[in-house]
């Protein structure tokens, strides 16, 4: 015993371990200097010491919390340990099947495309592209040049060097794989360059495998070209349709890679060729049936080798048809977003962002990331502008402030006492302060819909602060330029152009938050009336504000302004500028009015449905209406204007207990009629006056959906009125239709209940 204890203390004394140098590297696949470390077997000692512990006693690093331990991977647990071998499974990788038919190569290429698009669609590389044994084989040697990027497969009798069978694998499939990996490399770089949500939108994790980042695109191109040349040559003995299929796939890779690796400057100069990709894709689709799939070349076992701090995940490989749809849509969308490079005003640009990102299904993460780069990559807006150009255009298009604010001579003035200098300082502040918020707004619109809603809740707080700051600047500017006050609503007032513009955007964002709540199905049907009430409240506020903006377009300044003598002519707004700002305001008024009518109709309709018991409040054992109201109003509670109203007022305003149900439905009918009239007017307007030059199709589709909701609501109201009058309400049931109408205006479908099947014996006889 004494001896043993001596052994312990002796061992303890010898436990001299120098301070450990933390290994900061994420992964090491090669072995480090072998002389630096020495390992001593302490198994016995360790186990004995452990057995001396009490049950439940832990020995731990004081800085280590058990909370962290929750994130640990459990070794030897099949669900957590990607390196675990199944019982009886050999660690030696199975021999990779070496195909000898061109049909098999086509099949593998198409399977790879499915894997690649599964990755684009949100799965990890470890579940998709990396599970292909050929990709694994190619990348496992960590190639840094195109020559090294090749398969290392055991030589086979059937695959003699230089034969067509050999070339199928070592030239054609290799070129395709290299091209595909390089495509993934560029997609990953693009997505990492902009703001997206890791794991939520896309998984950029590469498990420390280099996606041929050191191999140049021209080298990959050369390899793909030589593969195509080989197929074209007399050496390739395959039938023409096979040749065409192989060539289309290789050529697509080449073009796709060219597009994915293109920089913004190139795009500005209109060198993009997404159409070429789309054409080749159609050939791939036609020749799809020539391929023979080879499922054995994909294996989950590859995950054993990947540096991954997460548990193993299953293989994801969407069907070819789905992958084909995704890649086709990607090419079309990527082509479409290039339209924003034809800048035609800020309002048009905003409409494009709103309509493009609202599309169902939402454009892919890659495209939404690329859209952000086109908008403001490398701090250049649309590849050639400054953000101030777009920002000030946006202000002018809506509010058209006084000319003196934008006079280029302001900037030239260097005397701090000079009025022009002082104006310039304030405008510079505005461009910087509002510019940031403005860029963030565009970037936020590019996020996924749930994030958009969530982030807007934060943005409105910033825009609210911006509004207050701008009011102050507006006040200073109106004195500097000697703005003439104007009578508006019995008050003498000034334009407050900058803060008006900010307020308008803030109100729109507040509306979007609630609208997105409908789109994302956040609200339950019994809340619909209340949420539409808030929408119509925001819209009414915005309508009043727009009236005010219209009143103050291009405010006049005193004729004795000291700036009059030094005003530059090119800064003066023309009559056309004034007219176009008025037209913008009128259009925006019409749009807001149409929405407001539809919202009002919805309030009455859903309130009536609640009264009639067709929309029921579910039991809320742990909640109350007041608590829920508080929750819904949380994003708006800190906003200065418009105010959140008290729950009691809200309830009586929404419920309208003084109005008869039938009367309420008559009012709703009026609203749908008005709304419909407004939407009809909107659809008759040209793309230019609707500011939908960049996305006319999407804009018109959106209008048609509004109209459909309007008509649907009208129908529901008629059915309801009839049911009340004929006293058949008890037979009615409703179903909220989220799918076939505008996502912001789900419409109830009211129908009579399916009658139970007639009993076999008539009830009268039975009695």
């Amino acid at each position, binding site marked *: *015993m004494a001896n043993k*204890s*001596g052994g*312990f203390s002796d061992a*303890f004394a010898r*436990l001299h*371990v*120098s301070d*450990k*140098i933390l*290994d900061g*590297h994420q*992964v090491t*696949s*090669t*072995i*480090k*200097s*072998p002389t*630096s*470390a*020495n*390992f*001593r*077997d*302490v*198994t016995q*000692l*360790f*186990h004995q*010491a*452990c*057995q*001396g*512990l*009490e049950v*439940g*006693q832990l*020995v*731990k*690093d004081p800085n*280590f919390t*058990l909370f962290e*331990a929750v*994130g*640990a*991977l*459990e*070794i*030897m647990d099949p669900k957590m340990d990607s*390196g675990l*071998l199944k019982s009886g499974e*050999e660690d*030696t990788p199975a021999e990779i099947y070496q195909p000898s038919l061109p049909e098999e190569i086509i099949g593998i290429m198409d399977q790879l495309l499915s894997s690649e698009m599964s990755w684009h669609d949100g799965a990890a590389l470890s579940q998709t592209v990396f599970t292909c044994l050929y990709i694994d084989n190619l990348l496992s040697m960590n190639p840094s040049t195109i020559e090294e990027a090749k398969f290392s497969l*055991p030589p086979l009798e059937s695959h003699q060097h230089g034969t067509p069978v050999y070339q199928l694998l070592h030239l054609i499939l290799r070129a395709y794989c290299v091209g595909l990996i390089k495509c993934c490399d560029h997609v990953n770089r693009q997505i990492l360059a902009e703001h997206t949500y890791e794991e939520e939108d896309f998984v950029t994790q590469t*498990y420390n495998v280099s996606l041929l980042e050191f191999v140049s695109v021209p080298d990959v191109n050369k390899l793909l070209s030589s593969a195509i040349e080989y197929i074209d040559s007399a050496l390739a003995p395959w039938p023409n349709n096979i040749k065409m299929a192989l060539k289309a796939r290789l050529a697509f890779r080449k073009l796709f890679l060219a597009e994915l690796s293109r920089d913004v400057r190139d795009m500005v100069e209109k060198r993009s060729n997404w159409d070429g990709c789309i054409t080749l894709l159609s050939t791939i689709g036609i020749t799809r049936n020539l391929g023979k799939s080879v499922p054995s070349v994909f294996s989950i076992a590859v995950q054993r*080798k990947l*540096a*991954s*701090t997460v548990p193993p995940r299953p293989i994801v490989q969407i069907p070819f048809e789905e992958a084909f749809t995704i890649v086709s849509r990607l090419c079309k969308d990527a082509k479409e977003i290039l339209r924003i490079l034809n800048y035609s005003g800020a309002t048009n640009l905003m409409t494009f962002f709103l309509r493009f990102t609202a599309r169902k299904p939402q454009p892919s993460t890659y495209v939404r990331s690329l859209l952000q780069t086109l908008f403001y990559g490398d701090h250049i807006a649309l590849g050639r502008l400054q953000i101030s150009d777009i920002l000030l255009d946006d202000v002018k298009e809506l509010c058209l402030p006084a000319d003196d604010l934008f006079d280029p001579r302001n900037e030239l003035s260097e005397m701090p006492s000079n009025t022009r200098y002082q104006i310039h300082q304030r405008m510079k502040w505005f461009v910087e302060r509002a510019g940031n918020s403005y860029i963030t707004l565009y970037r936020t619109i590019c996020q996924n819909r749930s994030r958009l809603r969530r982030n807007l809740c934060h943005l409105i707080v910033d825009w609210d602060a911006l509004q207050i700051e701008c009011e102050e600047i507006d006040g200073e500017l109106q004195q500097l330029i000697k703005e003439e006050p104007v009578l508006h609503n019995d008050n003498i007032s000034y334009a407050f152009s900058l803060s008006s513009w900010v307020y308008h955007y803030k109100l729109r964002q507040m509306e979007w938050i609630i609208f997105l709540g409908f789109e994302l199905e956040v609200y339950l049907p019994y809340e619909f009336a209340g949420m539409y009430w808030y929408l119509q409240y925001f819209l009414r506020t915005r309508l009043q504000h727009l009236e005010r903006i219209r009143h103050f377009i291009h405010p006049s300044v005193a004729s004795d302004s000291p700036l009059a003598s030094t005003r530059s002519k090119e800064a003066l707004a023309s009559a056309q500028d004034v007219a176009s700002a008025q037209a913008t305001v009128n259009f925006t008024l019409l749009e807001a009015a149409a929405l407001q009518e539809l919202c009002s109709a919805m309030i009455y309709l859903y309130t009536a449905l609640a009264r009639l018991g067709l929309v029921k409040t579910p039991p809320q054992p742990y909640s109350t209406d007041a608590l829920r109201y508080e929750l819904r109003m949380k994003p708006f509670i800190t906003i200065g204007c418009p105010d959140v109203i008290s729950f009691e007022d809200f309830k009586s305003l929404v419920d309208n207990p003084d109005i008869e149900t039938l009367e309420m439905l008559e009012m709703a009918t009026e609203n749908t009629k008005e709304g419909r009239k407004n939407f009809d007017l909107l659809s008759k307007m040209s793309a230019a006056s609707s500011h939908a030059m960049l996305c006319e199709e999407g804009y018109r589709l959106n209008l048609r959906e509004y109209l459909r909701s309007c008509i649907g609501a009208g129908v529901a109201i008629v059915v309801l009125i009839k049911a009340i009058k004929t006293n058949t309400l008890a037979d009615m049931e409703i179903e909220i239709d989220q799918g076939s109408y505008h996502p912001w205006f789900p419409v109830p479908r009211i129908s009579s209940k399916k009658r139970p099947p007639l009993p076999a014996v008539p009830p009268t006889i039975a009695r």
Partner: protein
Amino acid sequence: MDLSVAPSALLQAFIAKTLRVTTKDTRMFVGELKCTDRESNLILSQTHEYRLPKFKPEDVGRKLDLTSRFLGLVVVMGVDISKIELEESGGGIGFVGSSSVAGNSSLEATAMEA
């Protein structure tokens, strides 16, 4: 057991030291000990997994990388452990020329090359 050093104090000396743990399926995990208990369950941080590649006749004489990958924070159950080793000198985590572990002279030679 009359110990001049309490077991917990002895074990405490292992905390934050680099261990190489061999599991019963012959994999090795090299990481820094964060926590242990009566069952010798170990929590290791900054862990790398090493597995011995299987040799094929044609591989003899070729440079072979030991398959290693980074796993981060892991839990290894005491019952799965066949060997625990302590890293004694400073520097990186590495494979030492301990033939008892590598068990294959050609592997060692390649390790030296690397």
